[in-house]
């Protein structure tokens, strides 16, 4: 292949597009790589805003009683922390940044199927994000991120605007998913058969399907809430014979699969990194590929287990328990296949791989605590305690968040054309890991002792673990800022990265770093699988 690392960074896609100014060449671009960068910067900015909200919420608990904010401010903060972290960060992060940047290159295409639609979905994302932040200024919603009826119908705060912003974000998500499905179906390079697709592409493909199928249901549900607030159509209002539990159905039909929208792409990135650093073909390629589809399919049918406590029929609960049991199988398959790959691989230790190890460790704790929650919460009151908070932070931050950070450190040299300082990155990871566990592990203990979640105050007996957790939040915050600072410095001043620093075999590493404008001089002919590490392959 003609591309090599002597092609400077200035000649790649990062150079200004001819005939456009600097700003226009970014804001009006249809290049999937540039759109990926737009997402990278916007999503990481919102992530930092969410982190700051989280740190402030922790800081409030440094002493008992109102310290830096009142109860209703705290309520508004956790709603915003939830909305930002879920809808602005963890749902779009991997598909929108890495999916946009890498999916076309990985399948050997010059761009996604609908480049202009792709730019439009970034604009929808930004519009939704700014609307969500506007609610902060005009009086934040205090319903929590679930907007449960009937509170969300009656409360005077800016629920309509918050709901509308989530609706707009949903449109963005649908358009991205639609684009990816068509791209994978239509634009694979010659020889790129379905079973030669990198596993990351498989996971994005499965995710895209969930986005297409589940998001419209959330959309119409939010439209119904707005219609309810403006016109009082009555479907969720018990005063008019409506049923608020139906809101929960429609909400969780989307929001449970959304958990898989968050986790699947991160798992895909991990499936990409593991074989590269184990230097062997991934164990059970087809099993992982099918398990992505399996998670997407079965995961769409288990929404009911969020509603066991809200007074719904137990006949339905039996079905949902059954499906919940089934969905554990494909997830377990993935973990065992990663471990199977590492087993007897010749492992190369390097920064992205450390992130993957942290991911597997934290995600396992998250999963196990979920089982504990299911099996024990009947006897011990764990519902609505800090235990739940710890559990979903281990799943979402420890799982999806660390998966995303692994992806960021793995593909950074390809995206920017420069290499970051690995020592600083490793150092930040170690402290992130320590800070994470110091922050969230005490929450398991607090939850077990009965500390209710979502409250700005606590009883004297919880002081110790609250303080440990707050110290953890400072370590976590400092290491996140160090990590992102390290990458920012590298993006502008780092040493030029070689074409293929990790020795990977997928297509994106066969083009220069950063990739040229249309990805490939000639569309490659694919003749082997994505994880073929045999010599001379």
């Amino acid at each position, binding site marked *: 292949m003609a591309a090599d690392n002597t092609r400077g960074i200035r000649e790649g896609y990062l150079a200004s597009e001819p005939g456009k100014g600097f700003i226009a060449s970014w804001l009006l671009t249809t290049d999937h790589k540039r759109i990926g960068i737009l997402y990278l910067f916007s999503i990481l900015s919102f992530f930092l805003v969410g982190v700051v909200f989280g740190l402030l919420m922790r800081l409030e608990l440094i002493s008992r009683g109102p310290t830096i904010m009142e109860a209703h401010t705290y309520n508004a903060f956790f709603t915003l922390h939830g909305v930002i972290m879920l809808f602005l960060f963890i749902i779009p992060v991997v598909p929108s940044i890495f999916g946009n940047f890498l999916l076309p290159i990985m399948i050997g295409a010059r761009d996604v199927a609908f480049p202009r639609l792709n730019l439009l979905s970034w604009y929808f994302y930004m519009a939704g994000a700014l609307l969500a932040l506007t609610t902060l200024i005009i009086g934040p919603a205090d319903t929590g991120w679930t907007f449960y009826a009937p509170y969300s119908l009656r409360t005077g705060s800016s629920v309509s605007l918050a709901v509308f912003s989530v609706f707009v974000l949903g449109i963005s998500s649908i358009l991205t998913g639609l684009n990816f499905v068509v791209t994978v179906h239509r634009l694979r390079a010659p020889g790129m058969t379905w079973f030669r697709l990198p596993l990351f592409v498989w996971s994005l493909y499965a995710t895209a399907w969930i986005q297409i*199928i589940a998001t419209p249901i959330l959309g119409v549900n939010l439209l119904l809430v707005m219609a309810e607030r403006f016109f*009082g*159509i009555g479907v969720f209002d018990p005063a008019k*014979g409506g049923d608020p539990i*139906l809101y929960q159905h429609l909400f969780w039909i989307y929001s449970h699969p959304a958990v898989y929208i968050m986790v699947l792409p991160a798992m895909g990135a991990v499936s990409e990194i593991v074989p590269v650093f184990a230097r062997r073909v991934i164990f059970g390629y087809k099993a992982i590929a099918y398990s992505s589809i399996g998670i997407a399919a079965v995961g769409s049918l288990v929404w009911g287990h969020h509603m066991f406590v809200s007074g719904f029929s137990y006949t339905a609960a039996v079905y949902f328990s059954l499906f919940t049991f089934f969905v554990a199988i494909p997830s377990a398959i993935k973990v065992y296949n990663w471990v199977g790959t590492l087993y007897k691989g010749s492992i190369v230790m390097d920064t992205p791989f450390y992130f993957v190890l942290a991911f597997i460790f934290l995600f396992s704790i998250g999963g196990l605590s979920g089982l504990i929650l299911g099996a024990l919460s009947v006897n011990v009151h764990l519902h609505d305690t800090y235990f739940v908070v710890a559990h979903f932070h281990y799943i979402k931050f420890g799982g999806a968040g660390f998966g995303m950070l692994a992806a960021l450190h793995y593909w950074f040299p390809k995206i920017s054309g420069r290499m970051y300082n690995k020592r600083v990155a490793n150092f930040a990871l170690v402290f992130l890991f320590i800070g994470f566990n110091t922050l969230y592990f005490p929450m398991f203990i607090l939850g077990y002792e009965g500390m209710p979640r979502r409250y700005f105050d606590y009883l004297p007996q919880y002081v110790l673990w609250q303080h440990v957790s707050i110290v953890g939040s400072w370590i976590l915050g400092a290491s996140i800022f160090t990590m992102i600072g390290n990458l920012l410095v590298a993006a502008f001043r780092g040493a030029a990265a070689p074409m293929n620093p990790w020795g990977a075999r997928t297509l994106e590493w066969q083009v220069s770093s950063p990739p040229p404008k249309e990805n490939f001089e000639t*569309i490659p002919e694919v003749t082997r699988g994505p994880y073929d590490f045999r010599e001379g392959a």
Partner: protein
Amino acid sequence: MSKPHDISHRDYTGAKLGMWLFLFTEFFLFFGPVLLYAVFRFRYPHAFIDASLKLDAGVGALNTVILLTSSLCMALAITAMQRGRKGLTLFLLALTVTLGSFFLVNKYFEWGAKFAHGLYPGGEALAGNADGTAIFYGLYFFTTGLHGLHVLAGMAIIIGAALMVHEGRINSTDFVKLENTGLYWHLVDVVWIFLFPVFYLVR
């Protein structure tokens, strides 16, 4: 720079696949209220039947015929475009839009009659009602309103497509935009095909 796998504007199948996927998200959008309708009809059978009897099935049937005919015009317009008959295409598109506006005018009078009787969410005839009648009308207005917005959007898109036909940007060799416009309009029709029995006929 035209290579086999270039991002081709001629990937008709890709463009239509994208459009179909979009249409499916629209199906899901309407699936929500129809699901709620099914649930509440199960819960309040008598109120729903009584409320449904107050709707004029004749007007609903007339609107069905109007939309079906406009769909026919749209399909004929694509056939005409494929055969290169630009004038006929424009005429058929104009007819489609006109029929669409007839549908809306009809709907306007139908809604107006309900408003006159206080049968709307928050209206005096439904105030304090909790036996399911208010829900029926709530769903009726929500769903037909959402559908009406789609009719409006569809008409705007058809007018846009007609302008492109006029300018020659849609022509007998490159007409996938017209096909996708047609797909959207037919979706509006298919949704109505289901809404009509749901609200007017299941008694």
